[in-house]
């Protein structure tokens, strides 16, 4: 008998060849078997014809981190078939299309399957044959691993929207693969899948779709954006969900989406919309963040709410647009010149991408400031099992906005006066029909009534009040997830690396090393972060960037504990692999 529900496989194809849907069918079938599984697409910054890999890991424990060696390697791409063998270890199985020409010797466990020929049995069309080749390997793998046919067929149906002609062809191709395995290969697989109940109440989804949907449910009514990988699908999913869910009874749009001419305009439109009273957002990645710096500073200083989704990719500069990093932590925390600071949120799962949308807008409007949600390519574009999303009953926090009636009662209004001692002033929206409502928003120095001033005293007080607001923010930011198991070694991480950290901790435990774990959800840090630092002898911050950016923020904020705060870093652009972070911990 083989290992049950513990298999890693990698499929090497070319992008634009239709392999993506085949891979998703395979992945979703496993998910529907109730097995914890994750799927990661390693694609090139290119539209068609270059190498792409898809990695699937099924694990009873829910680990999704990519392992150094794969159990099964499927090679379909001539360009990479030699190199794909590097993923093999002695036990691994190497399944390759018979048509591939290798320049290296094949491993012992190589299995040649003529995917192309099998596909030909199903169709005569050259174009279709190419696409169906992919489904054939799905059939082979399904048979080998033990994926039930009903699940596979239903998943194929769903993938192609139950469009009969397409579905039938694909099912036939899958069956051809299955049959081939059954009749010709007959190998007893070392790895087997068995149905489980792990995925009850769960969904399989990518973070960008979750964030787009979340933004609809979070009340966002304005989005302006400029296309950039890997954030485009977030904006696009927001728009398409709006089309479905945000029409009024007359079929009119209760939302607006503008594709801006660049990121300068995208964020600046958000500033305009936030100022006017809408929940407004943009989605971008590295280069876009850089271009948004000036307006981000304006929004901080003039106190305008807005949300930026930063789906991080590998930088600096254009970097590797289709690889992942957590590299914009410092850039976002201080984006713009001067003493500027921005709250950051760090979703770790699609579920949090969904729920943090409301958190982000609530905070942005409460604090009257720009809030960054830092996702990344791994979280945003890969497939994760996550808890089914909770429908929020929590009312939107629209913050301190004074209506005409409120102004009438108050009989006075000073836009930038701290009436409540929390550093947060009141605002009015343009169009408010009241004599007191109007004020003049500016990025220049201003007094409490928003008038221009160069008074040294007033200026310093303004900066101090903004800082007071920052202190208030610390009490409003989401609390970290903390699991204390020891006082000797405390790990800190954030965002998409969470599942890798879980695996890493288990491995450490097996080696006899107990760890505590704090997963940050936000910057500025809440008091519990300080407490965690205080109560652990050694702290290791695990992150996916070269410079230990989150560690730097921790050092800045908590110099008292700086000595004991170390880094464990991984920054090659691949999704975190648990073992890459191990060295830094021990």
């Amino acid at each position, binding site marked *: 008998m083989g290992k049950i529900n513990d298999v890693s496989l990698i499929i090497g194809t070319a992008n634009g060849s239709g392999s993506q849907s085949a891979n998703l069918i395979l992945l979703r079938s496993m998910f529907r078997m109730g097995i914890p599984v994750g799927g990661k697409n390693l694609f090139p910054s290119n539209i068609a014809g270059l190498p792409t890999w898809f990695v699937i890991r099924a694990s009873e424990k829910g680990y999704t981190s990519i392992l150094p060696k794969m159990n099964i390697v499927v090679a379909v791409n001539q360009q990479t078939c030699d190199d794909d063998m590097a993923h093999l270890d002695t036990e691994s199985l190497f399944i390759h299309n018979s048509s591939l020409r290798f320049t290296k010797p094949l491993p012992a466990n190589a299995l040649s399957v003529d995917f192309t020929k099998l596909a030909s049995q199903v169709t005569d069309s050259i174009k279709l044959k190419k696409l169906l080749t992919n489904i054939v390997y799905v059939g082979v793998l399904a048979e080998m691993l033990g994926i039930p046919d009903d699940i596979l067929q239903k998943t194929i149906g769903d993938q192609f929207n139950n469009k009969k002609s397409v579905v039938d062809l694909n099912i036939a191709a899958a069956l051809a693969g299955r049959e081939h395995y059954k009749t010709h290969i007959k190998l007893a697989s070392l790895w087997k899948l068995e149905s489980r109940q792990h995925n009850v109440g769960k*969904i*399989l*989804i990518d973070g960008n779709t979750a964030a787009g*949907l979340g933004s*609809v*449910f979070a*009340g966002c*009514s*304005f989005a*302006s954006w400029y296309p950039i990988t890997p954030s485009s699908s977030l904006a696009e999913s927001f728009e398409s*969900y709006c089309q479905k*869910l945000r029409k*009024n009874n007359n079929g*009119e*749009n*209760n*939302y*607006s989406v*503008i594709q*801006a*001419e*660049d990121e*300068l*305009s*995208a964020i*600046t*439109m*958000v*500033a*305009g*919309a*936030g*100022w*006017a*009273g*809408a*929940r*407004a957002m943009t989605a971008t990645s590295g280069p876009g963040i850089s271009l948004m710096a*000036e*307006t981000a500073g*304006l929004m901080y200083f003039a106190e305008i709410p807005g949300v930026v989704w930063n789906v991080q990719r590998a930088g600096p500069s254009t970097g590797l647009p289709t690889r992942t990093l957590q590299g914009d932590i410092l850039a976002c925390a201080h984006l713009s010149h001067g003493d500027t600071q921005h709250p950051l949120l760090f979703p770790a799962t699609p579920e949090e991408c969904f729920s943090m949308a409301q958190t982000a807008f609530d905070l942005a409007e409460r604090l009257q400031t720009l809030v960054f949600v830092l996702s990344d390519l791994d979280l945003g574009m890969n497939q994760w099992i996550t808890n*089914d*999303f909770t429908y*929020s009953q929590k009312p*939107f926090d629209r913050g301190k906005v004074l209506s005409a009636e409120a102004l009438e009662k108050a009989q006075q209004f000073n836009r930038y006066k701290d009436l409540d001692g929390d550093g947060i002033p009141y605002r009015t*929206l*343009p*169009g*408010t029909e*009241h004599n007191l*409502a*109007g*004020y*003049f*928003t*500016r*990025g*220049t120095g201003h007094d409490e009534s928003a*008038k*221009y001033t160069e008074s040294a005293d007033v200026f310093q007080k303004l900066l101090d009040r903004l800082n007071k607001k920052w202190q208030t923010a610390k009490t409003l930011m989401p609390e970290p997830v903390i699991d204390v198991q020891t006082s000797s070694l405390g790990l800190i991480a954030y965002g998409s690396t969470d599942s890798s950290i879980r695996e890493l901790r288990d491995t450490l435990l097996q080696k006899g090393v107990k760890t505590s774990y704090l997963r940050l959800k936000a910057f500025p840090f809440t008091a519990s972060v300080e407490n965690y630092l205080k109560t652990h002898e050694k702290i290791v911050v695990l992150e996916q960037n070269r410079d230990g950016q989150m560690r730097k923020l921790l050092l800045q904020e908590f110099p008292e504990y700086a000595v004991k705060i170390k880094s464990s870093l991984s920054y090659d652009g691949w999704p975190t692999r648990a073992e890459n972070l191990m060295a830094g911990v021990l």
Partner: protein
Amino acid sequence: MDTAKTEAATTGKNKLNMARADYAGSKSTLCSGCGHDSITNNLISALYQSSINPYKVAKMSGIGCSSKTTAYFLSKSHGFNSLHGRMAPVATGAKVVNPDLQMIGVSGDGDTASIGLGGFCHMIRRNLPMVYIIENNGVYGLTKGQFSATADLGSTLKAGQTNQFQSIDLCALSIELGCSFVARSFSGDAKQLVPLLRSALQHNGTAVIDIISPCITFANHNGSTKSYDMVKELNVPLQELGYIAPTPEIAVDYADGETKTIQMHDGSLLTLKKVDARAHDVSDAKQALSVLFESRQKNEFLTGLFYYNKASANLIDQLHMPQAPLISLTESDLRPDEAALRNSLHEFT
């Protein structure tokens, strides 16, 4: 003829029962004699005479002496003195989520034609409903008088340098990009400017008004093509303009065959009396471009309304939003129900 104006003149109050002073802002801090102050003044006249509701106005600007002027009128309105070159996108965001706002933007030639050129062009493409005023002095006033991109070829700086680059003609550019209302005027020409502003305020798309506005401190010397003297000398109005507010029964009766009338969105009329032989049909963009092209060769400042297209769909139309502005939507409009969530998630199970 203009009832609003007449009424206002006699009673000292307009239709909203507001005095001209209700349209004023804080005291200008510009150099005395700055063209921008005249524009402010003419704008106040236009707003007052047209009984614009101050509470519904959003005053937008970028950064520059010109951009400061939004503080000098309509202190009852909200204003947004944003970033250098970013007036267009800020206004876009605000207008989309609240189309009830009457957007009045004041920018400079540096703000629009230099740093803000990209955003300006794209706003025009989208036909954002907005009065977009450029207070054009050919220099960066606030940073002490360097050339901007509208400085004319051969114009000199106070310190002597000569501009060697071709000037960007913001009117021609706007027409080329499909702008639906394009005019040029001179800061001091109230007779021309006020009717233009009043009709622009009734236009349902982007109304670009390029106003030559001399900088008394840095561009009023001999050699500056945008000095008061030069502008007066080179200013060639195409038409004599008149504005007629909408009344129950408008009886337009012109003997003069040389006068054309165009009707604005709200029913008000702009009358254009030909005073220059070249005055063309303002609905003909091609002709407008030709007229501007030729006048540029002559180094004159042709002023007047160059192009008007009532029909072209604006951004707000394109977005198919409800009558009520998005900012008035409540939580129940904005948050779909739980069933919608469950339905949406079905495909991920």
